């Protein structure tokens, strides 16, 4: 299969990671299970490979990276990175690939019934934030791109982000060739976000699995994902969907669409929005339903990025724009420690084990 472009709803799950990268692969899987995900397509790994081979970028990369052995030499890394990234940004894709990409954009615009449809252009590296978790979030994302030129520029930018100094150093240090870590680029409709955030099907700090934890704010989710804003914090009981707590945060910045710049930018949160509660009970229900559905699909605790679109009506589903296994507590090795799981306070049928708790909290604990 050598298609330069693959639609999200056409990806074959078995080859998804290899063809469209981890991020877009999972989005495809979710779309096939009936979750509400944005429409879109991927510029495949194969397209990237051919672009590098056909335009001479491969040769340039090898030429520049060959002598690079000591990543402690920051200046050297920086210089190589700058040169390669500049080359990526300056190198237009071949006519065939460019045509495939813009035709797909036009098709997406038609499907969305929006001539200059706004899209999110996201890097989707193979293996990203799965087994190579340390790469999570370091590649570029462009929100609010529209039109052919803008799209092609964003795609080149995503490719170039494979060669940031940090990514370069990592690969050199681990003896990974850039050929072993190619990248797909996802192009998906930009959901007009009323509110966005993340949700965990496990408490990300305590590891408690009996709850869903939601963090959210107004606008797009970038400010939250980047840790630039303290979001509202919500905890929901998984068994009965009851809201256990809702802490309204003082939200000082927001990712909003700047119509003049034509992009989602970070800006000051308007005063009167800052302390307003973002999510109502119905929206919390919808997010909880989304994240638990993703968890059932993968069979392990997950975290997702969700968006509530401007057209949301009570009873709707939220958009899931990203999903991944929860990496801290989600693996069996880091599974919930039974000893600190309050569920263990009950022995048998609803009993109370005072001795265990007395041992832990009273009389100076145990040796």
């Amino acid at each position, binding site marked *: 299969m050598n298609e330069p472009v693959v639609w999200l709803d056409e990806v074959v799950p078995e080859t998804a990671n290899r063809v469209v990268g981890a991020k877009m692969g999972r989005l495809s899987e979710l779309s096939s299970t009936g979750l509400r995900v944005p429409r879109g397509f991927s510029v495949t790994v194969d397209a990237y490979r051919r672009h590098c081979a056909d335009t001479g970028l491969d040769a340039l990369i090898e030429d520049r990276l060959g002598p690079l052995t000591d990543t402690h030499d920051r200046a050297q890394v920086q210089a190589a990175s700058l040169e390669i990234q500049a080359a990526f940004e300056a190198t237009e894709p071949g006519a065939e690939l460019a045509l495939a990409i813009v035709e797909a954009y036009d098709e997406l615009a038609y499907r969305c019934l929006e001539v200059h449809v706004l899209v999110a252009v996201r890097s989707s590296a193979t293996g990203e934030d799965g087994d190579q978790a340390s790469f999570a979030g370091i590649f570029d994302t462009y929100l609010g791109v529209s039109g052919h030129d803008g799209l092609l520029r964003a795609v080149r930018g995503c490719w170039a982000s494979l060669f940031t100094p940090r990514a370069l150093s990592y690969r050199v240090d681990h003896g990974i060739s850039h050929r072993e870590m190619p990248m797909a680029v996802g192009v998906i409709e930009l959901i007009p976000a009323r509110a966005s955030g993340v949700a965990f099907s496990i408490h990300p700090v305590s590891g408690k699995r009996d709850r869903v934890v939601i963090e959210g704010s107004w606008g797009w989710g970038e400010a939250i994902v980047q840790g630039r804003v303290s979001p509202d914090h919500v905890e929901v009981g998984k068994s009965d969907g009851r809201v256990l707590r809702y802490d309204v945060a003082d939200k000082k910045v927001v990712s909003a669409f700047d119509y003049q710049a034509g992009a989602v930018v970070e800006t000051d949160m308007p005063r009167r929005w800052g302390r307003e509660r973002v999510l109502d009970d119905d929206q919390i229900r919808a997010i909880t339903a989304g994240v638990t559905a993703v968890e059932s699909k993968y069979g392990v605790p997950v975290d997702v990025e969700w968006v509530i679109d401007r057209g949301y009506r009570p009873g709707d589903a939220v958009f899931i724009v990203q999903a991944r296994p929860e990496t801290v507590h989600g693996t069996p090795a880091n599974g919930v420690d039974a000893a600190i799981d309050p569920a263990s306070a009950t022995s048998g049928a609803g009993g109370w084990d005072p001795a265990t708790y007395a041992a832990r909290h009273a009389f100076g604990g145990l*040796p």
Partner: protein
Amino acid sequence: MGTIVPLEEFLADEGYPGAPLAEQQSPWRVEAAGAFRPEDASRFWFLDFHWPRGLTPLGELWNEDGYSWGTQTAAESLPLPRGRGVAVRTAGTHTYAAEIVVRSAAEVADRAGRMSQALPRFLRDFPQIWASRQREIEEDWEELRSVDLSRSSRKEFSHHLVRARRHHKRAFEIHFQLMYPLLANYIAFRGLCTELDIDPGLIGHFLQGYDTKILETDRELWRLTADARAAGLGSLFARTEPERLMEAIAAEGERAAGWRSRFEKFLDIYGWRTEGISDVALASWSEDPISPLGTIKTFLQGNSDHDFEAAHRSAVEEREAAVDAARSTLTLEEQRSFDAALKSSRTANYAWWNEEHDFYIDLRAMLPLRRAALAAAGHLGADRPDDTLFLFWPELTAVVAGERQLAELTGLIEDRRQYYAHWKERRASMPKVLGTVPDAVSDPILIEVFGLNKHFLEAVAAGRPPEGDVKLSGIPASEGACSGRARVLADADNLHRIEAGEVLVCESISPNWTPAFAKIAGCVCDAGGMLSHAAIVGREYGVPTVTAVGLATSTIRDGDEVHVDGTTGTVTVIRTAPDPAAAAQP
């Protein structure tokens, strides 16, 4: 290694003049009570706030039978994993205590295993266990009361004396055997709540609002107040000092006869309590009703009655609201754990029992011995009716048995009275802690009941309040804030003088202080944790209370204007009394 507070000055003291060797026949189990020894400097001792006057020679029985035997027997029989109970030392007439630590890790593990077995069964059966212990105490008490000592032979009297001592010893055996596991469960429950992220401010409310004998007594006092008002005795109470009230009421004759008989009935049921815990030197209300009369006198000064029904209803409502608020933040799975733990904690309710048992144990277990000792003084023609309280147990039994003459001890008794008075005078300046002050103690009983938390330890180790504005802090034991005039009390002797709206400042309160809570605006204690009497009673009465302040009685002066914030645990002196001498107690 923490600060060391030297105890040399107490090593030099030889104790009561002519004191017999303490260990002769003392019923201690792990470690006997006694005077400080040089090696005690390496341990951590705290001044026990329950006996602010010091103990008389006969009163020192408490140190053996109650404190040492009671705690050590209970700690060994549960057993407590890390502690063998309390070691007791005297500095002059004052009692210091320290934990007896189990050092071997293997032994701690073994004891923890045994406690795990014993604890759940105890908690499940607690209502029956307490009912049966209560009956045992009650039956023994009634029997002792019914003995007519004026007709007893010398032999019978001797026998009675021993039985009276045994009553006290057994009562405190029971006391600690119940207290340790109840407290363990309470702390376990609170630990669970902490793990469940339940707002700590709610936890104190979960177990409140259950009626106790102590509250029942307070209600009766208010009923007597209403009766006195109805009987037109208001002005009599208003113009008469508490000390002369009994006389004055008797002088009223017919007009006050009805009320007097009601008051006597009250005393017969509720009057068997002392103004302090387990101190043979203290009279019961029945013996000397000045305290209940003084309380009624102050109650009469306010024009409205304390609405116990309303207070109880609001305590219950607050409790249920706290439980609902906590449960709403829990997942279904957590609710199951919480509900089971709450049920156990209500079945075996430490907070409730901690008040309830005072009526049966703490406030009256010493009374049979006091009655016997005073009767002996009468029989033997003592110079003063309480001479026998200044005898040590072997001396008293010998005198009662006719083996020794009281007259040959008269000089010694006088010396001991002076010794007692001397040390009573010194009380205010006694170090709150002695020996090696740790940064923290691990035994939660010391933390919860005595309030020996980090802050307290720092404050007492430093020995002075923080620089600058006089702002003290402690444990936020009962929510709310208030301002008022400080009334600094060294002991309960002047408790009935406290006026409505004042802020009570003291070392700590005993259960018998509770009537005062119906009229004070706030309470500040040097000692006491979240489970001290002050904390529990403060919550029951809705009085803002801060405990474990460490330096309240040495920093705040009578008459100072203070602000008490029981929610944050701070006490601020807003304005100092203009002239301390003028503001001193009458």
